[in-house]
């Protein structure tokens, strides 16, 4: 099933999939959700965090979107949103969308193809007034031009075929912005075409959305309003959920150690575990001692006991995988038997560690002469916790690590300046897609390739898989890249995080997509059964 050929064929039109409202849904009500922190801004294109996407995706529409009824985001389950239909040119370098007519922005302005052009021109790096930061510029390296044909047709011109391009447009990180709303407004009270309008975004306090009565999908949304309350303390958030103050938790807010308590206090809660599309990984400064020595890098990765990490951080629910989210949840990751052959993923940890110790002893280290290093990480619990475990594990191979907690403000500076030895890092991947992941994190020219990992061979393979139209062949290349990265100890992955999202049973119509937390938050199909 996973190998089902995606329907890439040219000329095959995505059918209009605007679902007619089904008879059971009830209109009305306010959905109350707790929010974990203060979103840096409301502008999805400028940010890379679920804190922004989850509340504000409902304000916008994409051109296309992952089928909200499907559990797995995959290239073959993409449906129209603002686009009624789309088509590829014969050489697979031009993607043309026919836009829905009569759509209005929340401020009453009509939506046209110009808005699409404005958005992607800005994202591709042209000067623009609608964004001031562009964290996902690398996605559009291959986008040469955006052309319009009248108000309701727009064409994306690519430099080479890139099947993932449509996938990227379908993610929650790809809303259509308007030409006429400046970046400052987009960051504080954004204007979209989506099912909900922003009433108020109070920093550190709340986000209030109300139903857009003029939403172009007739009959939707069902909810009158969505109230987000920002509660930075997790126990307070969960207590609020348990006591009925909130109808739903923030995405992936309920870690496994907490799940038991939530279920005990609120037995009727519906909780769903899924990967968060965030993996914990180790940043290695390969340009400076001691990790400029490939031997030390290898010893490091051999010392890892991924199960132990997993056991502590999620009671064993995190997924062991390489760079891509592993199957079955992930669409692209390598199979388990192949994974076991990668360094650091062997089931026999003791054997690996013995090997690592041998390497270290060979380099002159030992119990009385440990290698002293610093492990940098952001001074936030979710970063610090794995770092503390890492330091503890490294003791096994004569590495005496000291935690170096870095204020979050200077974290990237420090990493970019290569002012670290080891770093514990979390990487979120917006879409379970090899282009998104590899280009962002491992391509030599990417902004977000923090470790400055440069490998011409890997770059070549990344480009190669990106242009590959045959899904089977492409997966093979993807796995090869994963293996190369692992062998090269590029960014050893400790685990793909898994956590729970819970809601009250009266919340209906919610479909969580298992391979990305960033894509399913339009809230247009959600209703309250009161």
């Amino acid at each position: 099933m996973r190998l089902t050929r995606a329907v890439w064929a040219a000329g095959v039109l995505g059918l209009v999939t605007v679902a007619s409202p089904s008879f059971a849904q009830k209109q009305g009500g306010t959905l109350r959700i707790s929010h974990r922190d203060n979103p840096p801004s409301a502008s999805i294109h400028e940010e890379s965090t679920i804190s922004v996407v989850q509340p504000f995706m409902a304000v916008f529409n994409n051109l296309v979107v992952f089928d909200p009824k499907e559990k797995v985001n995959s290239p073959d389950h993409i449906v129209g949103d603002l686009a009624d239909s789309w088509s590829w040119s014969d050489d697979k370098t031009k993607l043309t969308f026919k836009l829905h007519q009569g759509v209005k922005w929340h401020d009453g302005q009509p939506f046209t193809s110009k808005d699409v052009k404005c958005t992607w021109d800005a994202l591709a790096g042209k000067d623009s007034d609608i964004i001031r930061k562009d964290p996902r510029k690398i996605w559009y390296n291959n986008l040469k031009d955006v052309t319009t044909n009248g108000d309701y047709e727009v064409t994306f011109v690519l430099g080479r075929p890139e099947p993932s391009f449509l996938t990227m447009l379908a993610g929650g990180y790809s809303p259509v912005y308007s030409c006429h709303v400046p970046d400052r407004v987009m960051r504080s009270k954004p204007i979209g075409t989506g099912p909900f309008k922003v009433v108020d975004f109070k920093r550190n306090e709340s986000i209030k959305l109300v139903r857009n009565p003029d939403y172009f999908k007739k009959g939707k949304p069902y909810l009158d309003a969505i109230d987000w309350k920002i509660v930075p303390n997790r126990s307070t958030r969960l207590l609020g959920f348990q006591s009925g103050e909130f109808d739903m938790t923030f995405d992936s807010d309920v870690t496994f150690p907490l799940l038991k308590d939530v279920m005990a206090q609120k037995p009727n809660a519906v909780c769903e575990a899924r990967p968060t599309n965030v993996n914990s990984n180790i940043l290695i400064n390969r340009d400076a001692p001691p990790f400029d020595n490939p031997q030390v890098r290898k010893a490091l990765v051999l010392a890892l006991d991924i199960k132990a990490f997993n056991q502590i951080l999620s009671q064993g629910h995190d997924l062991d995988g390489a760079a891509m989210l592993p199957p079955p949840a992930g669409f692209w990751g390598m199979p388990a038997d192949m994974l076991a052959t990668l360094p650091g993923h062997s089931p026999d940890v003791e054997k690996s560690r013995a090997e690592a110790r041998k390497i270290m002893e060979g380099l002159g280290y030992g119990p009385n002469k440990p290698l002293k290093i610093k492990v940098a990480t952001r001074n936030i619990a979710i970063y610090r916790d794995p770092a503390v475990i890492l330091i503890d594990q490294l003791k096994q191979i004569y590495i005496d690590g000291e935690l170096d907690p870095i204020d979050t403000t200077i974290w990237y500076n420090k990493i970019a300046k290569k002012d670290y030895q080891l770093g514990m890092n979390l990487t979120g991947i917006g879409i379970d897609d090899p282009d998104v992941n590899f280009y962002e994190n491992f391509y030599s020219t990417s902004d977000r390739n923090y470790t400055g990992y440069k490998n011409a061979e890997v770059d070549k393979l990344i480009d190669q898989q990106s242009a590959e139209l045959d899904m089977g062949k492409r997966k093979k290349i993807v796995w090869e890249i994963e293996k190369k990265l692992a062998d090269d100890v590029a960014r050893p992955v400790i685990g793909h995080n898994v956590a729970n999202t819970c809601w009250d049973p009266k919340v209906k119509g919610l479909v969580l997509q298992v391979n990305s937390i960033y894509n399913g938050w339009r809230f247009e199909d959600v209703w309250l059964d009161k």
Partner: protein
Amino acid sequence: MGAYLVRRLLLMAVTLVGMSILIFALLRMVPGNIADILMDASGNDDPKEKARIVHDLGLDRPVTEQYWQWIDGLAHGDLGYAFVSERPAIEEIAPRIPISGKLAGLAIVFAILLGVPLGVVSAVRQNTGLDYGLRVLSLSGLSFPSFWLGLLVLMASVQWFGTIPIYDADAHGFFAQVKMLALPAIVVGFRSSALIMRLTRSSMLEVLRQDYVRTARSKGASNASVNYDHALRNALLPVITVIGIEAAFLVGGLIVTETVFNIPGVARFLVEAIRWRDYPIVQNLTMLIAVVVVTMNFLVDMAYMVLDPRIKFG
């Protein structure tokens, strides 16, 4: 009196100007700025974008110019724009003031209601078991970290009521608000009540040693009359001072309590703003706190003059 007032006001102004320089300088020492944070939030490290943000926010200008711009704005009632929300700073700060104000007010009321009577009882029953008990209680008030007390209160609240007070911005009406803020106010006020109780006690003991208390006794006044008619009024004068100053200094307790109870007041906002390197917010909020403290000190002195007939104006 005029000369004294002028001198006081002048000193206040000097203090506030000094504070503005201090806070401004300290903030520029903080590693990282808003642009770093914003870039960090989006996870890309594009020097061009960062430079643009730095330029747009005027952070690339000389610090003296930045300082002057701030002060000049303040003089014209313009607090500038918050870096994070990009709204006028006044709009960010103003709505949070009444929240913290109400909490602090409630806490002080609680502290006085608890602290003064217990302090009096403790002094009157000096060196009895009751006195020891109350002294231990008041010392514990000074010893418990208020965030821990807050956590314990939350734990207890969950245990007994199955719920916790979650701040609701839409709660209107006096009782609804009091109900919502009561627990955090008790947590904040506990420390103050301990302070007030200690001071009331020692002040009361001091007064009870005074000659005029002996005079009152020599007139045949009863213990109660001596304690309450003669001693308490005199003992309360220093207590009023501490209440006034404590009211201003309550901000410290509010910081952690607003965090624990998730109350969107100014105190928590300050920490948040520091974390975000939101200079306009931090600068203005700090100045606001300093103004409150300095003004409270001033008012306390004035109140002292009014309440204590011995102190003459001038």
